[in-house]
């Protein structure tokens, strides 16, 4: 019981991560894939921050007098990671917009079909 409770955060975090991961690898709409990626990454952030928490601690902002501070380093790392995540999303969305212009769709299956048709046409022309 102690074990289950003591790891509650981690169990849920694994579920959340896998949820995001599943969206990434199973969906075909590119925006949805990016949403999945962002869910996946956000869940990893939760994992890190969970690691840093100390029961009964406070945020690592120094105050006078005795206090237990939660881990500042995980926050530092995740601040960086959040920014990286949004940068990836932004670039991904820019690509999606361009892909939509080039193919008229952002569905991976439809794009696959178009590319196969292109390739077949080239081979035909030989």
């Amino acid at each position, binding site marked *: 019981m102690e074990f289950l409770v003591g790891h509650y955060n981690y169990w849920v975090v694994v579920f959340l991560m896998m949820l995001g991961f599943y969206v990434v690898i199973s969906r075909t709409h590119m925006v949805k894939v990016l949403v999945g990626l962002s869910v996946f*990454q956000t869940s990893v952030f939760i994992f890190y921050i969970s690691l840093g928490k100390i029961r009964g601690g406070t945020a690592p902002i120094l105050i006078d007098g005795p206090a237990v501070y939660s881990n500042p380093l995980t926050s530092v790392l995740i601040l960086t990671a959040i920014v*990286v995540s949004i940068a990836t999303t932004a670039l991904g969305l820019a690509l999606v917009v361009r892909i939509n212009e080039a*193919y008229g769709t952002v569905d991976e299956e439809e794009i696959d079909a178009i590319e196969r048709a292109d390739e077949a046409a080239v081979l035909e022309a030989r």
Partner: protein
Amino acid sequence: MTAHLPVLQVVIPLMAAAVCAALRPARVAWAFAVLVSWTVFVIAVLLLREVLAGGTISYEIGGWAAPWGIEYRIDVVNAFVLLIVSTVGAVVLPYAGDSVEREIRRDQIPLFYTAFLLCLTGLLGITITGDVFNVFVFLEISSLSTYTLVAMGRERGALTAAFRYLVMGSVGATFIVIGIGLLYSVTGTLNMVDLGLRLSELTATRTVPVAFAFLTVGISLKLALFPLHLWLPNAYAYAPSAATAFIAATATKVAVYMLLRFFFTVFGATFSFDTMQLGFVLLPLALVAIFSMSLVAIFQVNVKRMLAYSSLAQIGYITLGISIGTVTGLTAGILHLFNHAMMKAALFMALGCVIYRVGSIRIEAFHGLGKRMPLTMAAFVVAGLSLVGVPLTVGFISKWYLILAVLEQGWWPVAALVLFTSLMALVYIWRVVEAAYFHPSPTDEVAAAVREAPLSLLIPTWILVVVNVYFGVDATLTVEVAGRAAEALLGVPR
């Protein structure tokens, strides 16, 4: 000044990237990027010399002592990889000048070079750092700029290739972050050496093997190790010529380096090979990659994609060397990092010359090029022979060590497979040679106008061709460095 070389190695291209974005016209941005790449190359040479003479360099960024601050730690292994990356950069950027003007719209060129320099920065940053989270940050710098470079290809396929690469790359990076988090949770540190120390003291925990698995899978995605390779062929095939030459020769090499660093420095050879039985996992994957990718390469009609599949097979060779886990095996793997970088960059640059003049790299586009572009095709042939592993080229040296390492284990069938796949390489290189030398050129006016590529493209290509031959005739330097790197990783005293 020399004391700060480690940080300059990364900060110079980083700052230069920002400057480059503001430079106009395109030629100025290019000249500036070339200058930067040469500076970076010189620094890498100086660092390697220093490491070879004086041993490992530790540099504390901002003066904050490790493991509290971020440490740059350079031993023979990453000094060698730094040299590989910067050499390729220093040769490909001069080449890029004319090639990029043909393939990228003029007003976008300064930003293209910015992305190029950022990619260089990221790769160097991953290689040089001694902090696992810093690896992730620089990994993302290199990845995001690589996605951009790939997306700049002329065909629309470049966009989807870049998107798929972005998704797979981000999944890989996230796996790496999970792995780092797990390691951090049980050790409390991010410094590689500190991690190695603390992990070795740790009693059995299930977290470490899982962290190991996540890091391995995450890096293998970046490495395009079979079966995680699906993003690579299109990314290489659609990227602009100069970008392909650079990325193909460096990105996967740096990923291999990450793998080595985690396996040997962080987890330790004993854990990686005895506890995790890494050899048993990597070996079959490497063998399947070598064989199946060589086979697929034979049937490609797009020569660039053919070489991309060939790269996947070559990654298999490198992983094979690593999976053996002996000094000879690692030497073979590390040696092939350098050798493969040189031959693949040369090959892709030769293809870039063909694109420059002919505009296509389908196999039919090569008809008659043996006569029309003799120097380009000669470069392709020599680098191709190196890929096959013909004596007096670097490819032969790699193969020699790889087979020696395999034979030390008594793995005859593996040696046979390595040799057999060399012949498969001969077949796919041969298809191009046959198209270039035995098919008459098409008779239309467009084909008649095809001339030899300009010297600005030929000279850098031939520099690499000469490197392929030079280090094939006298490999003492590369073998020595690779051997020392292998020993450093395995902790064998010299």
